[in-house]
């Protein structure tokens, strides 16, 4: 493994029971970079994040994070590794029974013996970084979708992780919140000297902020490149994705028998 890569994945296969999700994925994520994993819904992007975080085990292949093989770690080692990872879930996953402040302080209190005054200063700094210091006393239910996402972001970086993973950080946000989150992802990665993996299907926002993009379809990497290469790409899948065309390599129709057969009662739903 090259020391320049924080994450390296080789020949990775993963299946839920007998349903294959990922097939022969190989990729590397260089240190300090913001990398996007793109693809339609259900192509295995989130599964890949969960494999990197050690929440799932691959059927075959290797996942190395900072030189350590994630599937080979025991529970204690995995938890030690996760303390150096931050993850932002699709809808924030804030703890709804505690305040914004306590959400951000959660990991500090669980994993460190820092005095409460120091935790207070650190939490306020993290919240300041996402522009929500003034909201520290609110409960998660009082936040808008965009604010909740920013609090979750502050929580994900609370222990200054080496690797930050985002699962659909832009889903369901208005254009202003979307742009704010995009800028924060870039800014925080550079300020913390971290490495970012972002799973998303928001191509336009991603092209502005990322260093590299991998395209996934049906559990495989089908294309990759820098934002400029992606814009210029003639690859049919990338073209369909960038231009948001309804039909192409990603079909409009879920696989089915010909419509005429179905209508005439010859299909499996025959009358």
């Amino acid at each position, binding site marked *: 493994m090259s020391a320049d890569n924080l994450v390296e994945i080789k020949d990775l296969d993963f299946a839920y029971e007998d349903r294959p999700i990922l097939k022969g994925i190989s990729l590397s994520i260089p240190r300090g970079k913001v990398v996007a994993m793109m693809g339609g819904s259900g192509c295995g992007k989130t599964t890949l994040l969960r494999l990197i975080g050690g*929440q799932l085990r691959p059927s075959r292949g290797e996942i190395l994070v900072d030189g350590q093989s994630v599937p080979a770690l025991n529970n204690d080692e995995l938890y030690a590794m996760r303390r150096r990872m931050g*993850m932002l879930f*699709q*809808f924030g*996953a804030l703890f709804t029974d505690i305040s914004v402040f306590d959400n951000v302080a*959660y*990991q500090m209190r*669980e*994993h460190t013996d820092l005095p409460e005054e120091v935790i207070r200063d650190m939490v306020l700094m993290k919240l300041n970084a996402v522009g929500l210091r003034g909201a520290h006393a609110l409960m998660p239910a009082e936040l808008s979708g965009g604010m909740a996402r920013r609090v979750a972001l502050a929580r994900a970086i609370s222990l200054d992780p080496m690797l930050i993973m985002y699962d659909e950080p832009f889903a369901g946000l208005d254009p202003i919140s979307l742009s704010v989150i995009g800028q924060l992802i870039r800014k925080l990665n550079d300020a913390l000297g971290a490495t970012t993996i972002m799973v998303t299907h928001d191509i336009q926002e991603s092209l502005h902020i990322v260093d590299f993009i991998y395209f996934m379809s049906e559990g495989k990497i089908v294309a990759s490149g820098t934002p400029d290469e992606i814009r210029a790409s003639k690859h049919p899948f990338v073209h369909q994705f960038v231009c948001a065309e309804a039909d192409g390599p990603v079909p409009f129709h879920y696989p089915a028998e010909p419509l005429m057969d179905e209508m005439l009662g010859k299909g499996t739903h025959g009358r």
Partner: protein
Amino acid sequence: MGGENKPSGVLLSALGTLGHHVTDAVQRLGFASRFFVMLLLWSGQSFRRINLTIREIYFSGFQSLLIIMVSGLFIGMVLGMQGYDTLQRYGSADALGVLVALSLVRELGPVVAALLFASRAGSSITAEIGLMKATEQLMAMDMMAVNPIARVVAPRFWGGVISMPLLAALFSATGVFGGYLIGVVFIGVDEGAFWSQMQASVDFRYDVWSGIVKSFVFGIAVSLIAVFEGYDAVPTAEGVSSSIKSTVVKSALAILALDFVLTSFMFREAG
């Protein structure tokens, strides 16, 4: 396809469904046992950080006090009326205290308090854990290197186990007071006879102790069912709702079945 309408086809498919149900049930039982072992292994934190458990005793135990005490009072009052009606036919109305106390301490206290606890606290524990799962809070916790079984499940389990015998004792105590209120204050049974016969006939070893053992066992059963159903809930609105229903139904059946088993052992012992 056509074979499904023949009697043999129907029989085969019914057998198949039955087989599926049986294997599913066995699989779930195995999963629940494994979950219980994990819960015990990860229980250390519940006692090291006793505040976590005390908080749950407050939510499931203290907040159930009102319904437990009001129900105890009414059941005691009903026992007072019914008991007096029967006993005075045989001229032994003075034994009302014994009847009320034995019924409550041996049976009604542990059983009814456990049934009320399952519907009041068990269902809310299942709902809370199930919703935490559905909103990815448990997964987020796990990714923050905080074990959800240690941090969320175990304190709720032990909070329930500790609360249950205390609630049953309070149920019995208010019940005895209810019996006293009706028997002595309203009907006019002799107060001295009411208390002295009760003191003479209620044996600590066989009556009070067996009630405590029962309520402790019910506490383990109800709390385990509640946390397991929440943790194992399908993470959707329907899934959580169905888990809550399961908690109430399975707890009620478990309480009644265990009561029969425990009572038969205790009678044998006493005989």
